[in-house]
């Protein structure tokens, strides 16, 4: 029997609607439609249940969470039950009045995404003309409202060389924290893997830039750096362990152990419209499938890091090996690690084709339409 801890945080994906079309979006290929989205009262109940279950933080995400006109109500509901509230946004829909209402509702932190350090790249990658400029405005609104700001930059081969400028931008807009996150390859990002995969030389330059900036900006800017798995020697502790610290609710109420869990074929997810969050956290077959260490194969099972990285990422094992119950091939001890390294070398050396942008349409047709 695996010991079930209380979750730390709820990732609330309020909607899959978004004005941007980033080609590495973490949403599933089959985006949920507005008609499927949970109502305000359903979200409020889920939020209360998350707090009862032991969650301390809530991240309002999407899609673009500000397209939901009831966002303020949900923030107020989360504040009322003592959750620390964070808004993860592209910023392009924020204006002063909205910002004011969110602050009044109790919002405590904003994570603002940038697609590049400058408008040309940013607007192209997000496929939204004028987006970068609006983000700069949004950053001003957040800081003028007195909220702490995290600047999030997803990095890949097409913007990795701008990393220094990204960090400068983060400081210039008054961010307290910068998240430099290499693309994680699931769903949309796999469709665009060759367009996104950095080279090893780019990775080494990124690491050097981050290390120098951490020293230079100590006490000024906290820098979180997520390395690309494909070049790692040990896997990331994905979600801090499956079903251990986080839960994710999709726009329609599906409760997922991580935002990419639906990419794994064969898992069945419970819906918070039908069962309480507590029951789902404890009893859902999807949560229990990879919880703890009992499911692990070798080399994880006897590894002294098994409760550090928890076997790495299940979605990645499924994406690359077709079996989510294998060791994450990002681990150097996986017999498939060399294959992963080869993919990275090939993809990063290939000529980058056009992006397959994230849109509502039949994903099976996406590739052929480009």
């Amino acid at each position, binding site marked *: 029997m695996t010991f079930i801890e*209380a979750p*730390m*945080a709820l990732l609330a994906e309020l909607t899959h609607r978004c004005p941007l079309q980033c080609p590495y979006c973490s949403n599933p290929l089959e985006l949920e439609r507005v008609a499927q989205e949970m109502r305000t009262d359903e979200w409020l109940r889920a939020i209360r249940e998350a707090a009862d*279950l*032991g969650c*301390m*933080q809530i*991240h309002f995400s999407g899609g673009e969470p500000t397209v939901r006109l009831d966002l303020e109500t949900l923030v107020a509901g989360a504040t009322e039950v*003592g959750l*620390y509230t*964070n808004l993860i946004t592209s910023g392009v829909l924020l204006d002063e009045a909205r910002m004011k209402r969110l602050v009044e509702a109790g919002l*405590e*932190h904003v*994570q603002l995404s940038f697609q590049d350090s400058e408008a040309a790249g940013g607007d192209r990658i997000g496929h939204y003309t004028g987006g970068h400029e609006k983000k700069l405005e949004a950053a001003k609104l957040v800081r003028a409202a*007195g*909220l*702490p700001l*995290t600047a999030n930059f997803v990095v890949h081969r097409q913007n990795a060389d701008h990393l220094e400028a990204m960090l400068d931008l983060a*400081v210039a807009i*008054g961010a*307290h*924290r910068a998240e430099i996150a290499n693309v994680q390859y699931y769903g949309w990002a796999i469709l665009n893997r060759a367009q996104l995969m950095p080279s090893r030389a780019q990775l080494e330059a990124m690491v050097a830039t981050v290390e120098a900036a951490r020293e230079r900006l*100590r*006490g*000024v800017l*906290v820098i979180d750096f997520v390395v690309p798995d494909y070049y790692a020697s040990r896997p990331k502790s994905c979600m801090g362990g499956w079903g251990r610290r986080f839960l994710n609710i999709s726009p329609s109420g599906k409760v997922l152990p991580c935002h990419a869990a639906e990419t794994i074929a064969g898992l069945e997810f419970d819906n918070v419209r039908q069962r309480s969050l507590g029951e789902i956290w404890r009893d859902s077959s999807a949560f229990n499938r990879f919880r703890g260490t009992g499911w692990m194969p070798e080399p994880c099972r006897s590894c002294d890091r098994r409760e550090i990285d928890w076997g790495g990422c299940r979605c990645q094992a499924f994406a690359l090996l077709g079996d989510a119950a294998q060791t994450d091939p990002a681990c150097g001890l996986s017999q498939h690690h060399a294959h992963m390294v080869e993919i990275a070398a090939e993809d990063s050396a290939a000529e980058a084709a056009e992006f397959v942008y994230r849109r509502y349409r039949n994903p099976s047709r996406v590739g052929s339409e480009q």
Partner: protein
Amino acid sequence: MTERTVIQRDSVPRLAAHTRLRFDKARDSWTIQAPERSFMLDAIAHAIVSRCDGAATVEAIVGDLCRAFEGAPRDVIETDVLKLIQDFADKGVMAA
């Protein structure tokens, strides 16, 4: 924020805006809730952080802790206090 805050004896530390000291029932532990981070506080860390009220200097906090934890050497307490607060300041969790 353009310069690092260096914590000294006469600094007056406090939790940064929009971080929260909160007792968590589910884990029976004091925590600091901060942007996309939670810090679990052990008894010593809580004793220090809970005294950082934006009015007391580091020196006064150390004095108060010496009275609360009789027998612990003052220089050890002072080193621990400066180290913990500086670390939290560098993480953006505390200000002075």
